[in-house]
């Protein structure tokens, strides 16, 4: 579709919305994508912290095989809240709502997203959803894990009603954000920015938006059926009335497998931005990276049943799912190899952001490899629902998503705040995170393979030593995050001014001042090439072709 349809919206005298004057319009009910992005960042960041606290509670309980720190009931609530908060209230809003909102419109040279008011509305579905979920703690919390498989989830009290309502509400916001982003990427790109000239983070955001649009509504129907089962006793999942419990798993995983890619694809985009900036050279195989993102997204809709290999689908159903799941390793591998190859012949600046991305390459590779192991049905039979699975998902979501996100935080912080962070503190943060992350989750592979199931409050005393080691590492890993807060605090108070382009990057958001002005671009730039041509003149029209790309940090 042609991008020229919004020519008038780009004219200098036609801002997409006027600059707000009152405090409320400026900071609370703001329609500016940058403010909405920061709002998302703050709320989802708090949710990740809260979720981390639940994780630490789990680890305290598991320091001993029959610890009494938590009752089994509390333990079940803890891992349910940990998973729920992390997936729907932490990571997804962070990578789409926060990073997508702040960075994507800037990178395509737009003044805002296509529907600014809708964007504000999307955000404001989020805090009420948080309140609904947390209030369930007072009324009998949900306690069947973030997957909430019936019938066990239906045995619980009213908590499941709060849970479905909360996730449904946050899902409305996610769907509307996806709709908004997709329209924005299709219609609002700067003139000359063809699809194959888009920055890779924009590719990632667009593909993620497609995933959210298709999958989140499917989740809504799964949640709806659970809600109806509990409230109106509808027999979807009651085998005594002809229902079937496996149906929920189909409906849930048809969303939640793509959701894993909703979590990781934006991070692929973040990594693809950070690596060329600090390697000071073009990204290796731009098109292959972009197209592999698309193929991952397509494949992700055809592999949901690999979460259900033990659910009794039979060999003829599981086999195609198994082979398609394995094939996802191919585009993922292409990305890892391309990023590694980008480092070849580079002029590498080992900033904190870059270190996190290198850490991401290392840990995400492990997560990918264990993913292939879990994709093979016979091996999955041994590994499924054990700590091996827990280790795998954390290598993907912590070692992958969160490492990349931390890199992204260090990378875009100067753009958002106008101030630099301390590199020294940042490097300490990286090394402690990297070491204790691996110390926490690597041993989980072994306890899992040796026979420790997940979601247990009590375990075989044979695993005591390893679990104690994991728990201590987990506490230290949490401690490492204090350095991030200290760094952020220091930066906001005393950090040196960043200037428009401290890293010497070439994507459009670095062509304007930090923090960006309300209207982003006084004049919408024209784009002539991909942004990654280090060593060549900037591919933008005046005055944006004059920005310095010499790192100044």
């Amino acid at each position, binding site marked *: 579709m042609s991008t020229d349809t919004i020519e008038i919206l780009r004219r200098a005298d036609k801002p997409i919305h006027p600059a707000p004057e009152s405090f409320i319009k400026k900071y609370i009910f703001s329609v500016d994508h940058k403010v909405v992005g920061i709002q998302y960042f703050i709320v989802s960041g708090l949710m990740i912290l809260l979720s981390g606290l639940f994780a630490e509670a789990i680890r305290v309980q598991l320091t001993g095989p029959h610890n009494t720190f938590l*009752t089994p009931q509390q333990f079940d609530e803890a891992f349910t809240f940990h998973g729920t908060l992390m997936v729907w209230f932490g990571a997804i809003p962070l990578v789409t709502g926060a990073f997508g909102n702040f960075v994507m419109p800037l990178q395509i040279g737009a003044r805002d997203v296509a529907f600014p008011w809708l964007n504000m509305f999307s955000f404001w579905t989020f805090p009420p959803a948080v309140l609904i979920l947390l209030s369930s703690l007072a009324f009998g919390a949900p306690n069947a894990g973030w997957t909430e498989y019936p019938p066990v989830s239906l045995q619980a009290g009213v908590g499941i009603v709060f849970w479905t309502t909360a996730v449904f509400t946050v899902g409305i916001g996610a769907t509307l954000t996806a709709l908004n982003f997709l329209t924005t990427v299709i219609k609002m790109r700067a003139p000359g920015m063809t699809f194959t000239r888009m920055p890779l983070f924009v590719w990632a955001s667009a593909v993620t938006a497609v995933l959210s649009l298709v999958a989140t509504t499917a989740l809504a129907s799964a949640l709806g059926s659970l809600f109806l089962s509990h409230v109106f006793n509808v027999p979807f999942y009651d085998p*005594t009335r002809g229902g079937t419990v496996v149906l929920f798993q189909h409906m849930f995983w048809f969303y939640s497998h793509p959701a894993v890619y909703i979590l990781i694809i934006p991070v692929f985009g973040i990594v693809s931005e950070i690596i060329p900036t600090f390697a000071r050279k073009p990204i290796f195989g731009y098109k292959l990276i972009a197209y592999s993102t698309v193929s991952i997204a397509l494949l992700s809709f055809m592999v949901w049943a690999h979460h259900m290999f033990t659910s009794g689908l039979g060999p003829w159903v599981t086999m195609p799912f198994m082979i398609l799941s394995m094939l996802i390793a191919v585009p993922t591998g*292409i990305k890892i190899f391309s990023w590694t190859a980008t480092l070849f*012949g580079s002029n590498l600046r080992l900033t904190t952001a870059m270190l996190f991305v*290198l850490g991401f390459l290392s840990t995400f590779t492990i997560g990918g490899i264990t993913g292939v192991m879990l994709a*093979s*049905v016979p091996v999955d039979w041994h590994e499924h629902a*054990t700590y091996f699975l827990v280790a795998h998902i954390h290598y993907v979501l912590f070692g992958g998503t969160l490492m990349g996100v931390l890199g992204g935080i260090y990378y875009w912080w100067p753009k958002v705040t106008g101030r630099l962070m301390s590199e020294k503190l940042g490097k300490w943060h990286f090394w402690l995170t990297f070491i204790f992350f691996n110390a926490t989750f690597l041993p989980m592979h072994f306890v899992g393979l040796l026979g420790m199931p997940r979601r247990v409050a009590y375990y075989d005393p044979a695993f005591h030593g390893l679990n104690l080691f994991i728990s201590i590492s987990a506490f230290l890993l949490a401690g490492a995050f204090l350095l991030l807060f200290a760094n952020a605090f220091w930066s906001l108070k005393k950090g040196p001014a960043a200037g428009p382009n401290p890293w010497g990057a070439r994507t459009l958001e670095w062509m304007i001042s930090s923090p960006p002005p309300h209207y982003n671009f006084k004049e919408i730039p024209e784009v002539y090439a991909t942004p990654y041509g280090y060593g060549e003149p900037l591919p933008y029209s005046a005055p944006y072709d004059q920005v310095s790309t010499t790192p100044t940090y």
Partner: protein
Amino acid sequence: MAHQVNNIDFRRHLDRSFWSVTLVLAVISVILVVLIAIWPINGTLAVAATSDYGIDALFKFMLFVATPIFVFVNGYVVYFARRYKHRSDEPADAVGIPLYGVVPLEIWWTVIPVFLMVVLGVWSAVTLFSLYKPQAGALNVEAIGHQWKFELRYPGLKSSFYGDFYLPVNRPVTMNITSADVIHSFWVPQFRVKLDMVPGMVQQLHFTPTEVGSYPLICTEFCGIGHGDMRTTVHVVSQADYAKWFSGTQQKVAQAAAAAGSLNLTAGDAAKGQAVFEQKCSVCHSMAAFAQKKVGPGLQNILSDPAHPKLVDGSAATPESVAHIIQNGYSGDIGVMPNAQANGLSSSDVSNLVAYLKSQSK
């Protein structure tokens, strides 16, 4: 401004240093692969059933493939990070080589993984189908998950029992697993088999225990607050020990049944039956006309309703056939009714219930 891809000579970076690092990484990979090859998985986690050999070989094959990928990605990342690090004597705006891609290389690292995945997929599929193949002369054992215990049923034992159970060594076993309430899972790590116990559905697990010993049977699917403690022990024993255990259990079960009282339909007490009905049956059945369904049909006049002379299983309604359904349960078009075992009904409960139903039939 169009970019020319591959317009620079990147080969000058493929120098001695690069190739020696590559060689080192290759050597490390080979060493690790050899170590994996000679690593006895048996020593780490005992192997105690036949179904595992394919699985362990598959697992090792994955490690063979994964190890070089892991070593090379990490090795190159560390090597590049050290070799190409920006030095302070370089100008601040120094850039790397303008390399946009190397098409043959990109084709290779697409094609080789596809090939590996296809090999892995075919191998996995073959192993997968072998797991579903029943063995001739297999011992059929039923395992039923409850919150939070495993119920076992053996052919020849009139009644089931909970807890530890025994399997004869070197005899094929078919486990028929299901659940009475929520989803549980049947996992014996040393057998390398795991399937979910899904309510309303029976799955089969085929394996042959090969090593004498005691192994844990663990529930791995979250099933409520007792999940962490839901485990028992499976003892793989010699044929002789198995026969001894079996006859001992048979006696114990018989004694327990005798203690519970045999079924004597004439001795039923309608009042006691009503209490049992309200406690156990009224969830699904009302004491009203047949058509008035809750989950199952209404049970009033069940023994004398001319409109429904037959029961759901096709038999004529007599006290004996009603007792039969209560004892054995029913599964068919109009739903599933658990048996007396699952409902926790003793023989005297059954006869009391029949008496109560009789009293409610005109």
